[in-house]
């Protein structure tokens, strides 16, 4: 579980995040949603410590991340996996080497054990054996995301963070990535936080949803509650696609019947 209390973040005097307080549950896919520029990525990067926050607290299973010594924080980072928007695979390494990298850096495993782990992780995200030797520039955007997920889970993380995992992908591949992240979250019982502005993802895997607008936390709830939320900013965001208004109306009709 990850708990955030009164988190504030500003850049050169401009407030980007204002007094965010929330909790992300273990074994669930937690989503941070909002328009582009609403502060989602800053919030995610603040949670993982890539941005130092101005004030507030972040707890990883009751361990205060904000007041941790750098050495302890470094150790905790080995419990995290992160999937970046573009995949962020290392260009100089092959697909298999990318997944093996955290194992090389932080484990005492034998080469055979590492090879087995790499195979397991890549099989788990459905990457074929032929692709193991390819470099990141030789694979598609969807495969890059899947390899990034494989790398993120290679050290058996307790926390998984995904920054817009569907950006730049077609709807079918997006759905596959969403399902994969959800399955991994449940299978390994990890705390997953996903940044997205894709409503399809929200309706597919959003077990806990946090809506942010202009750096403020406006609403939190589940995918079943989101269509009936009264928050005006959230309604504008959700119903920007009229398909969801229809879904809501149909559900309401079904409920009254």
């Amino acid at each position, binding site marked *: 579980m990850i708990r955030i209390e009164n988190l504030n973040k500003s850049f050169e005097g401009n407030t980007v995040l204002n007094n965010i307080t929330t909790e992300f549950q273990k074994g669930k896919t937690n989503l941070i949603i909002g328009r582009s520029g609403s502060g989602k990525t800053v919030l995610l*990067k603040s949670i*993982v410590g*890539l941005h130092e926050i101005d004030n507030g607290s972040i707890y990883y299973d009751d361990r205060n991340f904000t007041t941790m010594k750098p050495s302890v924080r*470094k*150790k*905790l*980072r*080995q419990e*995290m*996996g*992160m999937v*970046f*928007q*573009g995949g*962020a*695979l*290392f*260009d100089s390494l092959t697909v298999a080497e990318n997944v093996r*990298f*955290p194992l*090389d*850096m*932080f484990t005492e495993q034998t080469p055979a054990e590492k090879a087995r782990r790499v195979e397991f992780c890549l099989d788990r995200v459905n990457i074929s054996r032929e692709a193991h030797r390819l470099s990141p520039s030789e694979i598609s955007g969807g495969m890059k995301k899947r390899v990034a997920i494989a790398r993120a889970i290679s*050290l058996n993380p307790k926390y998984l*963070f995904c920054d817009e995992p569907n950006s730049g992908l077609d709807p079918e591949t997006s759905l596959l990535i969403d399902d994969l992240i959800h399955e991994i979250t449940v299978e390994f019982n990890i705390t997953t936080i996903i940044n997205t502005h894709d409503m399809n993802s929200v309706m597919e895997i959003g077990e806990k949803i946090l809506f942010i607008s202009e750096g403020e936390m406006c609403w939190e709830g589940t995918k079943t509650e989101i269509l009936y939320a009264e928050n005006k900013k959230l309604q504008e965001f959700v119903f920007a696609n009229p398909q969801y208004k229809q879904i809501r109306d149909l559900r309401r009709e079904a409920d009254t019947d």
Partner: protein
Amino acid sequence: MKFFFSAGRYFALLARVFSRPERSRIYLQKLFLEIESLGINSVGIVAVISTFMGGIITLQVAYNMTNPFLPTYLIGLGNRDSLILEFSSTVMALIMAGKIGSNITSEIGSMRVTEQIDSLEIMGVNSASYLILPKIAAVVLMFPFLYILSVFFGLIGGLIVGPSLGAVSATDYINGIQYAFTPYYVTFSLIKSLFFGFLVASVPAYFGYFVEGGALEVGTASTRAVVNTNILILVFDLILTQLLF
């Protein structure tokens, strides 16, 4: 004010670079890769430029020695001392700042803008040390070697061009390059090359590590890195010449 901010950030980055590596074995593997990529792959350009420069210096000295009472072996001596004292250390460092420096800035800068550096940090890897330390070590180790190679090819260039264009006989040229040899000049330049090697790797790495934006900013950072490295090489050349002579 901006200068002090940049200087402070540069030294703070160096402190991170020289902190204890996570896995010495992996750093060692990276060191060998960097020696090949930044050092061995520069041998060709060093050989070509030095050979031409040696030949040109020989011709320039010969054409400017108008006094018939000056012995022609001084042409070889002039070429040798020019190469040993300045060309093979300073001028070669300026050229290498363009080749190696821009390579380092663009590589690290691209990793920054594609979030690969963030990815390393998330894993708990000291990205500054992992990316920059092997490059600094490789360039500092290779620069003295490239310096000696440059002197050798420069002398060969003079030997090819001087006699073939009738500027000096081969015998006089060979006598000249052996005449009044001062070994300290080589020691002095080897010390300089260590400093220059450090600058050529660390300054561009700094510009690449802190780049913000996209591909355009990486290109701008590469240019700024090369310009700043060149200025620092000349400043340090002045300081070291004053201190070591």
